[in-house]
């Protein structure tokens, strides 16, 4: 039974307005900070004036954002239990989107680390993994399906206690007019997987609390993120921690950057990106 007074419009409005300043409601600090400069967790190397996005994604939740080319996005795992399932689409042409196979094949490397380009299927770089203090990531297993979470936890609904990554990414995509057909294989950050000699996929877990990755948007991006347990997480419970996000205006990768010239394949990927962007701009 509620003790709140909401029996008239004036009373209901007063009750609603009290929520925004309620200490109890905001105590988790897992929410978007608007404006971004009001974030309580601004990284020391970032000017608050440059921030364009600050949010703490709670466990079992998702977020989504359109960011401009040149935006630098930092994902932080303060507890060591976050797992950021990421999908990227080009905002001005969403049929160009993250292609995990090309993201591994072109750099000849399956394990994501500093400098790794996240490629579209169109021969261009969507984002560069510009910094990475975790190096525990996975490009094989994608996110969790409803069938997986029902088998493991008994429930996968987005409003339930153990939502699947796919149920959340489907909602994130829908906020941009996109459907299941627009989603492909995802990358997951902060919970690693390694391939054993016999081919077995071995869950590596996290690198511990306090790691982060920086992604530089090389094109205008629609960023979809679900923060849910990795499918191979062997822990029986639905274990996931909060995910911090800060993004700020920065510069896209250019010819003077190490990533640009890290390999001939990558150089051509950045050249293709610049070629297309300058043609449209």
């Amino acid at each position, binding site marked *: 039974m509620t003790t709140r007074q909401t029996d008239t419009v004036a009373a209901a409005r007063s009750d609603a307005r009290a929520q925004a300043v309620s200490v109890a409601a905001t105590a988790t600090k897992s929410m978007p900070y608007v404006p971004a400069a009001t974030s309580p967790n601004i990284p020391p190397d970032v000017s608050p004036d440059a921030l364009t996005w600050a949010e703490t994604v709670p466990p079992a939740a998702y977020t989504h954002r359109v960011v401009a080319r040149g935006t630098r996005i930092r994902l932080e795992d303060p507890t060591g239990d976050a797992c950021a399932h990421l999908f990227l689409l080009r905002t001005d042409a969403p049929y160009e989107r993250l292609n995990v196979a090309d993201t591994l094949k072109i750099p000849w490397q399956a*394990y994501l680390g500093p400098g790794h380009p996240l490629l579209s299927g169109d021969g261009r770089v969507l984002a560069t993994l510009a910094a990475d203090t975790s190096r525990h990531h996975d490009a094989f297993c994608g996110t969790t399906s409803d*069938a997986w979470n029902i088998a493991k936890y008994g429930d996968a609904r987005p409003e339930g206690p153990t939502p699947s990554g796919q149920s959340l990414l489907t909602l994130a995509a829908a906020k941009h007019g996109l459907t299941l057909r627009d989603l492909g294989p995802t990358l997951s950050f902060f919970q690693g997987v390694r391939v054993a000699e016999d*081919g*077995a*996929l071995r869950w590596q877990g996290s690198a511990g609390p306090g790691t982060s990755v920086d992604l530089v948007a090389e094109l205008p991006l629609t960023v979809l993120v679900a923060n849910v347990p990795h499918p191979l997480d062997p822990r029986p419970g639905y274990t996931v921690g909060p995910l911090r996000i800060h993004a700020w205006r920065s510069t896209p990768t250019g010819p003077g950057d190490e990533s640009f010239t890290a390999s001939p394949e990558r150089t051509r990927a950045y050249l293709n990106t610049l070629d297309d962007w300058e043609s449209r701009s």
Partner: protein
Amino acid sequence: MTILDWSGSLAPGAVVRDDRVAPRAAWSAVVPAGHVLTIVDVGGNQSADCLLFDAADPAERYSAPDTLGWSGDAYVRTGTVLRSNHGNPLMTVVGNEVDRQDTIGGACSKESNTLRYGHHAAADHACRENFLSEGAKWGLGARDLVSNLNWFMNVPVEADGSLGIVDGLSAPGKRVAVRADRDVLVVVSNCPQMNNPCNAFDPTPLRMIVTVVGAAPETAQEDL
């Protein structure tokens, strides 16, 4: 000289479909639930790039990550269940004459060829072209292309994460057989890539045989 071994079905039962796929060409068909598709690597080490769709609802489609996550294996082998983006079985590998099959390496494209081999390779024909043109026959487009299977292609992952397409493990006449666990649209690109060993630098034909046990053939057998 190229040796061609047209072999035969890897599964028992009546043949309801038997097609030859020319080098560099595409192929597609609905394989009804319970039917088995045998793919014959006629010339040896010819990558058959392959996508699967639920024939009734193509938004449910093959998912490499779901397949790998459920199997816990980086490679596709006998017994691997080929799962959809909902985690549901689409097909199951019921026969396989190659140690391991790939679903990590993805398809070649004109666009990625420019990264891998230089901009002159943009003119080459590619699997993405085959997927787009064959998929268009079924109302599918760029949004429907995801990480695919590569039958007869070899993509090892080394201890440090190094990965790449290397010489194949197959040979003329080797086969893989996949059973449809529901009505599945299968789209195949007979890989035309000439810049890496995914088809031993020599595109050769594929043979696609659909069989069914204990039921009358649903379509006439096509002439070889």
